[in-house]
């Protein structure tokens, strides 16, 4: 019987000819990524709870400090130091302050056909390159680090057939939020979201990352695109080669199929406190905001910064708004610097930070106060995610966020008047 891309990747990693939904397989992991959200716990368990502490293959490991950067407290600093010292001692690739983990993984590591565990839920991002990336906890990560392997329940796959092309002023983020609003926050629980169709061909790797990244917000185990010419060219430009390039078989089994016409997608926003509470952006216009955030592993790439900069250029951020602009990585930052985007943001009155997770993870940098409202290109709008439990987070596209920062209230880019 035919297999989906996800099933093929698992079969290859398990060293079996066939994998089908519902099977449990022991798989060899190609890579493991761990960030400062949990690595200190993994390191503690490694030292304190293992009878035979060892690392199967240090070269499979990547440690990335991105959540609280620069550090905001001695406790944060101690957690990061633990991670740094461990990486140094064991020869593990270590990145600090160079960007959000998923962006760094995509820029430097991920290859089509790989099976990757990351101790972060948005590890599903790697499907943009035809890899199977999925988020795990720190115990799973530890198990993988020690053995080089783990167990996987082969997930069912949902097919998302994309047709048409996004209109001007509508972005992949609008598309993905629309999909999540449509299928709900648990609409793809335990399942793979496979994106295909002509519409997929209109999307760049960066665009695909936006879609895959948010798949976990629909409960998905991962999301995946076929590693087509667009993906392979992207990979080649970065000097990497695929592990394996898979297509889903004609007779592969899908648990469900959806079709989305890209040309029908409108700018949308997710309302507090659920990612699937998605409405047309126009419906939330007029909500006064205190802060706006352009960044994150979902929407902090060069294309997003270009969109944001084109909107704030020649304009000033509203007096009562703090507009945080946080490029997703050092590469993105340097490109933005080269293109003059950083200067445009600075000129407009924005707060431009070093690449890191920033207020998307909501623990320190850019934290918002009691009853404050944030409009964000981040991944989540959970209750209190960005600060005080009474504060509210709206999610929107880079364009909507930048326009709202200028206006001082939620608005779409086309509503800005000069």
């Amino acid at each position: 019987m035919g297999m989906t891309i996800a099933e093929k990747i698992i079969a290859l990693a398990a060293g079996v000819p066939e994998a089908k939904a519902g099977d449990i397989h022991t798989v060899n992991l190609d890579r493991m990524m761990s960030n400062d959200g949990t690595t200190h716990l993994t390191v503690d368990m490694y030292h304190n709870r293992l009878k035979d502490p060892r690392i199967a293959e240090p070269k499979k490991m990547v440690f990335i400090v991105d959540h609280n950067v620069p550090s905001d407290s001695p406790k944060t600093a101690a957690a990061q130091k633990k991670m740094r010292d461990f990486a140094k001692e064991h020869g593990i690739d270590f990145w600090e302050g160079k960007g959000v983990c998923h962006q760094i993984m995509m820029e430097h590591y991920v290859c089509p056909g790989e099976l990757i565990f990351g101790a972060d839920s948005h590890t599903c991002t790697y499907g943009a390159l035809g890899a199977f990336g999925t988020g795990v906890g720190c115990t799973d990560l530890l198990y993988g680090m020690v053995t080089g392997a783990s167990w996987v329940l082969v997930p069912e796959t949902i097919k998302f057939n994309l047709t048409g092309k996004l209109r001007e002023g509508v972005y992949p983020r609008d598309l993905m939020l629309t999909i999540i609003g449509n299928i709900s926050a648990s609409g793809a629980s335990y399942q793979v979201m496979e994106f295909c169709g002509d519409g997929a061909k209109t999307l760049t790797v960066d665009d695909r990352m936006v879609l895959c990244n948010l798949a976990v917000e629909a409960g998905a185990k991962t999301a995946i695109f076929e590693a087509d010419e667009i993906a392979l060219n992207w990979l080649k430009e970065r000097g990497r080669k695929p592990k394996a390039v898979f297509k889903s078989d004609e007779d592969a089994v899908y648990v469900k199929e959806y079709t989305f016409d890209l040309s029908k997608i409108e700018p949308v926003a997710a309302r507090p406190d659920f990612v699937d509470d998605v409405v047309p952006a126009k419906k939330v216009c007029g909500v006064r905001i205190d802060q706006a955030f352009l960044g994150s592993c979902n929407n902090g790439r060069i294309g997003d910064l270009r969109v944001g900069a084109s909107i704030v250029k020649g304009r000033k951020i509203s007096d009562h708004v703090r507009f945080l602009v946080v490029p997703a990585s050092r590469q993105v930052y340097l490109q933005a610097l080269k293109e003059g985007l950083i200067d445009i943001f600075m000129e407009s009155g924005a707060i431009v930070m070093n690449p890191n997770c920033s207020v998307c993870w909501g623990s320190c940098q850019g934290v918002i106060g009691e009853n404050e409202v944030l409009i964000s290109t981040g991944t989540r709008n959970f209750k209190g995610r960005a600060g005080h439990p009474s504060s509210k987070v709206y999610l929107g596209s880079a364009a909507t966020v930048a326009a709202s920062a200028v206006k001082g209230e939620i608005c779409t880019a086309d509503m800005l008047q000069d």
Partner: protein
Amino acid sequence: MSVGKIFKFHNDLDTDQIIASQYLLLPTIDEMKEHAFESLEPDFAAKVTPGDFVVGGENFGCGSSREQAPGVLKALGVQAVVAKSFARIFYRNAINIGLPVIVCRELPDAVKTGDEMELSLTDGTAMANGKSYSCTRLPAYMQQILSQGGLIASLNEQAH
């Protein structure tokens, strides 16, 4: 298993509510556990006693991969989490650290915070307010991890 009090939460209960980001980098789970469910039930850590149950609706534990979420519940002595459905990373994490997570479609709608319940993992049944509910049984592979006391215990078994 013994009788415990129920703390009930809503659908799509996310990991940020179980333990907020700002506490994740505290040095130990024990320091974090005081902040469990802080945004929803500021007194949760003070009120919960070992053997109590957390009951959720659909998609319990959605959001981030923070293992601190099941970690703080286990550290507070929560006997099991019972929900209509679970988000997958939370589910996997809970099993990996030896915290029973039980799928039960009917029970959540029939109970409220403060009610008592009883759970039998071996029978796959739960009792609350004089009624018995059947629960979905764990796949054998996961059952085994759980019965060994979690993934690290099973790893240490292999080290023999």
